C-alpha cells in the first residue's frame, strides 16, 4: 500500500523523471555493470534509487540489521535473495522480513548457505510466503535436519536444492522432500551422512525429473546406484568418496538411458577400470569424467574405451594416477575435444607425454600439473605452442621449470587467466613474460623467494584484471612492489602477504586504495604497526577477512580503527598480537558480522576481560579459537552459552613462542 502510494504521488516539477522516464532510467542502468558505479547511482537521488529498486533482481544482504529495510524496498521485484552472509538470521527475523513483502513475493531463489540460525519455522514461513520458490541453498547449515526438510517440502515447485553438510538430514527428511517436491531437478546431498540406500531409492522413485545429483561422501552402496540408474533424465552425477560403491554398482549405470553427461567418481576407493569401462560403454555422450584418486594405474582397456567418447569428452580428471607418456599420447589422439585435463599428483608425467597431449588436444583450456615434478621447460614449450586457448595452468611444485618455460606460456597463451606457480624456482624475468597475459586474474607466487618488487611492477603494468595475488613468503617483495600493484591492479580482491617481512606501514598505505579488497593476510609482518592497519581499515571498507597473526606491532589503535571502519569484517585473526582488553572489547563490541575469531595467546588481555569481551559480543560467532589453557579459566557458563549459540570453540595446544 505504502509503495503504491509513493508511486502515484505527484512528482515534483524539477524531478529527473520529467526529462527521463523510469523506463529510460532502467535502460541506462542496465548498461552500468560495475557494482561501485551502481552504488553511486543509488546515491544520486530518490528517483534513481527507485529506478534501481525496480530494476534489481538479486540481493545479497551483508548485514542483518539492514535486512528489513532492504526487503521493504525490494520485495516486489526480487528473484534472488542471498542471505548466506547472515549467520545471525533466526526464524523470527526471517519470518518478519518475509512478512514485509507478504503476498507479493516473486522470489525464485533463496540462499541460506551457512545461515545456520534458520530452523524449520523460518523455512516453513519461506515456503509459505514464496509460492514461486524454485531454488534453495541450505548448504553448510549443519543444524538442518528432517524437520527443516519437512518444512521446505511444502515448496512444491522446488527445482533446485542444496543440502550439503546438513548433517542431521536422514532418510525421513529426504523422503519428505522427495514426496513434497516432485519437480526437483538439481539436488545435492553431499555429506548428509545419515542418508542411506533406502532414502536414495525413494528419491529415485519420486523425483523422476532429477538431472543433477550430488551424493558425494554418503555411506551408500551399489543398490543406491541401481535406483539412481532408473532416473532417465540424469545428466550429472557426483559420487565423490563413496567407498562402498564398486564396479558392480557402476555396472547398473550401463542401462542404455544414455542421458548421463558428467560423472564424478573420484576417491571411490573400490572403483576400478572395469567399472568405469562399463559406464563409458553405457553413455557414449559423456562429456565430463572425473576418476581422480580411484585406482592407481590406467588400464589399457579404459584408455581404449575413451576412443568411444572421442567427440563428446571435454573434461578428464585423472588426479593421482600413474600416467605414462604412451597413455597421454592415447588420450591426445582419442580425445580431440578435451578442454580440461587434471593430472595433479600424477606419477610418471614427463615432457614427452605432455607434448603428445598438447599436440593432440589443441582445445585445452585448463591444465592441472600440480606436483608433476619431472616436468621441465619442454612441456611448457609444447603447451605454449599448441594450446592457444589456455585459460588456467597449474604448475605448483614443478621444481624444474624456469623462466624460459614461462616465456613460451607468456607468448603462446594470451588468454591465460589463472596460473599457479607456487614453489617454482622462477624470477622476476618470468613475471615480465607473464605480464603479456593481460587477462590474468589469479596469480599465485607463494614461496617464490626470488620474486621481488620488480616482478610485481611488470605484472601491475599490464594485468589490470588481477583479482587474486598470492605472495606468501615472497621475502624480497617490498613496499614499492605493493605500490605498483595497488595502482596497477585496482580490482584486487584477495591478497596474501604473509611473511613478506620487508613490508612496512608505507606498503599498507599504498594498499589502502584497493577498495575492492576483501581478503587480506598480513601474518608475521613485523614492521607493520597499528598505523598501517588503520590506513587499511579506512581504505578497504569491504574487507571481510583479515589475518594479523604475529603482527607484533599492531595494538589497540589498529583494532579500534578496524572496529570503526570495516563493518563487514567476518573473519579476523589477532593471535599473538599485543592487543589489550580495551581493543578487544571495542572490536567485539562494535563489529556485528564477525563469525570467525582467532584469539590465541593474547598475552596482554586478562582472562576476565576476555570473558567480558566474549560475553559482550552481540553477533553470531561460529568459530572461536582459544588457547587451551583458558578452558578451565573461562567460566563454564560462558562456554555453555557459546555452545548454545552454535559457536564451535577450537582449543589450541601450542606453547607461547615468540617467532624471531
Amino acid at each position, binding site marked *: 500500500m505504502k509503495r503504491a502510494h509513493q508511486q502515484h504521488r505527484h512528482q515534483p516539477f524539477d524531478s529527473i523523471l520529467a526529462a527521463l522516464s523510469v523506463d529510460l532510467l532502467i535502460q541506462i542502468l542496465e548498461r552500468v555493470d560495475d557494482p561501485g558505479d551502481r552504488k553511486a547511482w543509488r546515491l544520486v537521488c530518490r528517483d534513481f534509487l527507485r529506478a534501481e529498486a525496480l530494476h534489481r533482481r538479486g540481493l545479497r544482504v551483508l548485514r542483518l540489521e539492514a535486512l528489513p529495510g532492504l526487503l521493504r524496498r525490494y520485495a516486489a521485484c526480487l528473484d534472488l535473495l542471498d542471505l548466506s552472509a547472515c549467520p545471525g538470521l533466526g526464524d*523470527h527475523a526471517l519470518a518478519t522480513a518475509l512478512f514485509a513483502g507478504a*503476498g507479493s513475493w516473486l522470489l525464485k531463489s533463496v540462499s541460506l548457505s551457512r545461515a545456520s540460525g534458520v530452523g524449520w*519455522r523460518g523455512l516453513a*514461513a519461506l515456503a*509459505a510466503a514464496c509460492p514461486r520458490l524454485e531454488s534453495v541453498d541450505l548448504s553448510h547449515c549443519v543444524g538442518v535436519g528432517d524437520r527443516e526438510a*519437512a518444512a521446505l517440502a511444502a515448496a512444491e515447485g522446488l527445482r533446485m536444492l542444496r543440502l550439503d553438510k546438513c548433517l*542431521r538430514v536422514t*532418510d*525421513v527428511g529426504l523422503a519428505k522432500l522427495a514426496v*513434497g517436491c516432485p519437480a526437483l531437478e538439481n539436488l545435492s546431498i553431499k555429506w548428509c551422512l545419515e542418508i542411506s540406500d533406502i532414502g536414495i531409492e525413494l528419491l529415485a522413485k519420486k523425483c523422476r525429473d532429477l538431472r543433477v545429483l550430488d551424493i558425494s561422501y554418503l555411506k551408500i552402496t551399489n543398490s543406491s546406484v541401481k535406483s539412481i540408474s532408473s532416473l532417465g533424465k540424469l545428466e550429472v552425477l557426483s559420487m565423490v568418496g563413496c567407498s562402498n560403491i564398486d564396479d558392480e554398482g557402476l555396472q547398473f549405470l550401463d542401462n542404455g538411458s544414455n542421458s548421463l553427461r558428467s560423472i564424478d567418481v573420484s576417491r571411490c576407493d573400490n572403483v576400478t577400470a572395469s567399472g568405469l569401462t562399463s559406464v563409458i560403454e553405457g553413455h557414449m555422450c559423456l562429456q565430463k569424467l572425473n576418476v581422480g584418486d580411484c585406482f592407481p594405474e590406467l588400464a589399457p582397456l579404459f584408455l581404449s574405451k575413451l576412443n568411444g567418447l572421442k567427440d563428446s569428452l571435454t573434461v578428464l580428471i585423472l588426479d593421482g594416477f600413474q600416467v605414462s607418456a604412451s597413455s597421454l599420447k592415447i588420450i591426445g589422439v582419442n580425445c580431440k575435444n578435451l578442454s580440461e585435463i587434471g593430472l595433479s599428483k600424477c606419477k610418471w608425467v614427463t615432457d614427452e607425454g605432455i607434448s603428445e597431449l598438447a599436440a593432440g588436444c589443441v582445445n585445452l583450456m585448463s591444465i592441472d600439473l600440480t606436483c608433476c615434478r619431472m616436468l621441465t621447460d619442454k612441456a611448457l614449450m609444447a603447451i605454449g605452442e599448441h594450446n592457444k586457448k589456455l585459460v588456467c595452468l597449474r604448475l605448483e611444485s614443478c621444481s624444474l621449470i624456469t623462466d624460459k618455460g614461462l616465456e613460451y606460456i607468456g607468448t603462446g597463451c594470451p588468454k591465460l587467466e589463472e596460473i599457479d606457480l607456487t614453489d617454482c624456482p622462477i624470477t622476476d624475468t618470468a613475471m615480465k613474460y607473464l605480464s603479456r597475459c593481460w587477462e590474468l586474474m589469479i596469480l599465485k607466487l607463494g614461496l617464490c623467494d626470488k620474486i621481488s618488487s620488480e616482478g610485481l611492477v611488470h605484472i601491475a603494468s599490464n594485468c589490470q584484471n588481477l583479482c587474486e595475488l598470492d605472495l606468501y613468503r615472497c621475502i624480497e617483495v617490498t613496499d614499492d612492489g605493493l605500490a605498483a600493484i595497488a595502482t596497477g591492479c585496482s580490482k584486487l580482491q584477495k591478497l596474501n602477504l604473509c611473511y613478506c617481512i620487508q613490508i612496512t606501514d608505507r606498503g599498507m598505505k599504498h594498499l589502502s586504495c584497493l577498495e575492492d579488497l576483501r581478503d587480506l593476510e598480513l601474518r608475521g609482518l613485523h614492521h607493520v604497526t597499528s598505523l598501517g592497519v588503520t590506513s587499511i581499515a579506512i581504505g578497504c571498507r569491504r574487507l571481510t577477512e583479515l589475518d594479523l597473526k604475529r603482527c607484533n606491532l599492531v595494538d589497540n589503535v589498529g583494532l579500534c580503527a578496524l572496529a570503526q571502519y570495516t563493518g563487514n569484517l567476518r573473519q579476523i585473526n589477532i593471535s599473538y598480537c599485543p592487543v589489550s582488553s580495551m581493543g578487544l572489547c571495542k572490536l567485539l563490541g562494535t563489529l556485528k558480522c564477525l563469525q570467525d575469531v582467532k584469539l590465541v595467546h593474547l598475552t596482554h588481555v586478562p582472562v576476565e576481560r576476555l570473558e567480558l569481551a566474549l560475553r559482550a559480543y552481540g553477533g553470531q560467532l561460529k568459530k572461536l579459537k582459544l588457547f587451551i589453557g583458558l578452558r578451565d579459566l573461562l567460566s563454564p557458563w560462558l562456554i555453555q552459552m557459546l555452545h548454545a549459540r552454535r559457536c564451535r570453540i577450537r582449543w589450541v595446544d601450542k606453547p607461547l613462542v615468540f617467532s624471531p
Partner: protein
Amino acid sequence: MDFKLRRPLEASSNASSSMMSEISRNLKPGLPFIPCDSTNICYGARQEQSFSEFPPPQVTQCHGLYAREQKTETKNQLEPSSAVNDLVMDWNPRLMLSNLSFLEQKIHQVQDIVRSIISQEGRANELAAQQQLVTADLTYIIIQLISTAGTLLPNIKNALLSATPPVAQTGVVANLPVNASQKHHEVLSVELAKASEYDELIKDLNSGGEGDELIKCLNNSVAEVSESIPIEDHDIKDYDDGMDGENLPPGSYEVLQLEKEEILAPHTHFCLICGKGFKRDANLRMHMRGHGDEYKTAAALAKPSKEASSEPAIIRRYSCPFVGCKRNKEHKKFQPLKTILCVKNHYKRSHCDKSYTCSRCKTKKFSVIADLKTHEKHCGRDKWICSCGTTFSRKDKLFGHVALFQGHTPAIPMDDAKVSGMSDHVQVGETTNGMVANMGYNFSGNASDDAQSLDIKDVDDGQGYFSPMNFDACNFGGLDEFPRSAYDVSESPFSFLSTGTCSFIPRNGEN
C-alpha cells in the same frame, strides 16, 4: 477340548485333579457334539454330574436348526455313546446301532421339513431356506452312512483305531456336516488305505458344485456355533513352535507326552531330601552339596553322562497334551515338538492365558515372559510411522509404503526432534498438509519457544483441537484423503506470527 470350557470344571474341584482329568477325558468324546444338536446331550450329561455352573448360552445357541423336538430322544443317546467310547476297540455294534438310530432321526427330521414345505407353499424366502436345509441334511445323511459303513471294512487295524483319537471316532458319528465330511475324507484317506472307493464318492460329493455351495451355506448358517470349536483353530496357528521343516517319518521317533501340570510346573527337578524345586538339574546338583559330603564328590557333581553311545540314540519327540492341537500326537497332521522347552513354550503360547501385558503399550499380551521381554525391547521404539498413521516396525517397509502411495510421507521419528519434552503424540502428529493446514490454530501466536509452543497442546485430545472447520477453511490444495487421525496433530511453523499468516497462500493464489 477347549481349555476355557474345561476350566470351570477344574475350579470346582481342585483337590481331586486326577479324578477330574479322568472325567474330562471321558467327556472328550462328547465334545464334537457341541456344534450340532447333540451338544445338548453333552451338556446335559455334565449337568447330571452336578457341574451346574456351566454357562448355559451354548445350549441355547445350539438350539439351531436340528434341535427342535429332539431333546428327549437324543438324551437316550448319551449312555450308549459314552459307554461306547470307553471301549474304543475295533468294530462296535452298539456304536453302529446308535449311529443308525441317529440317522433314522435325521431322516425323520428331513421328512418333517419336506412335509411342512408341502403344507405352506408360497413364501419364497422360507422355501429357499428350507430347500437348502433339506439338501444339507441329505448330504449329511449320505456322509454318515458312508462313514458308518466304512467302519465295517475288513482291513481296519485295531491299532490304528485305538491310536485314533476318540475325537475322530465320534467325529464320525456326529460332527457338523462340514467338519464331518472333511474329517472323514481325511480319516479315510489316511488311515483306511483301501477305502479309496469311498474316498472317491466323498470327493465327488465335496467337489460337486452343488454340494460345495451347500456346505458353504451351511457353514455360514452355523458359523456362530462353530466358533466354539477351537479344534480347527489350533490347526491353523502355532507354526512357530519349532520343529517345522523337520520331516521325520512317523514311527522313526519315540513320542512323549507330558501332562499339563508337568508342563506348567515352575520346577522340574526336586531335591529328594528337602523337596526344594529347581529349573535345572545343574542347580539341583549344586544344591545337593549342602546336604552332605557325599554329594560333593566329583562324580555326584558331574553331569550325568549320556550312556549307550554304542547303540543309536532314540530320537525323542514330544506331543502336546492338548487334544485337537496339531502338536498333539493324535492329530491327523501331527507335528511333534523337538524339546521340552518347545513343549513348554508351545503350551503356554497356545493353550494358556496371556497374562503378561506390556507395560508400555498396554495392549500386547504374552503368555511366555521371554516373549514379553523381546517385545518390550522394541515396543515404542523404532516405530516407523507414515503420515497416514500406519506404523511399521522397519524403516524399509515404511519407505516401501511411502513409495507406493501418492502423497504419503514418513513422520519424523522420535530421536530427530530437537525439541525436548515433547510428547509422543506431537512427535507423531506431523503431516505434510497438516503443517500448512493447521497453521495459526495450534498456537495462539505469541509462543516463541519450541518446547513451550509444542507443549501447549493437550495431546490427549488431538481431535477436539482441530475442528473440521480448520481443514475446510485452510485446505491448501490437497491431501485431504488422510483421515484426521490422532496423527494429524501438527506443529505450526508460525507460532511466532499472528494467525493472519494463514492468508499468505490464498492471497498469492489470487495474484
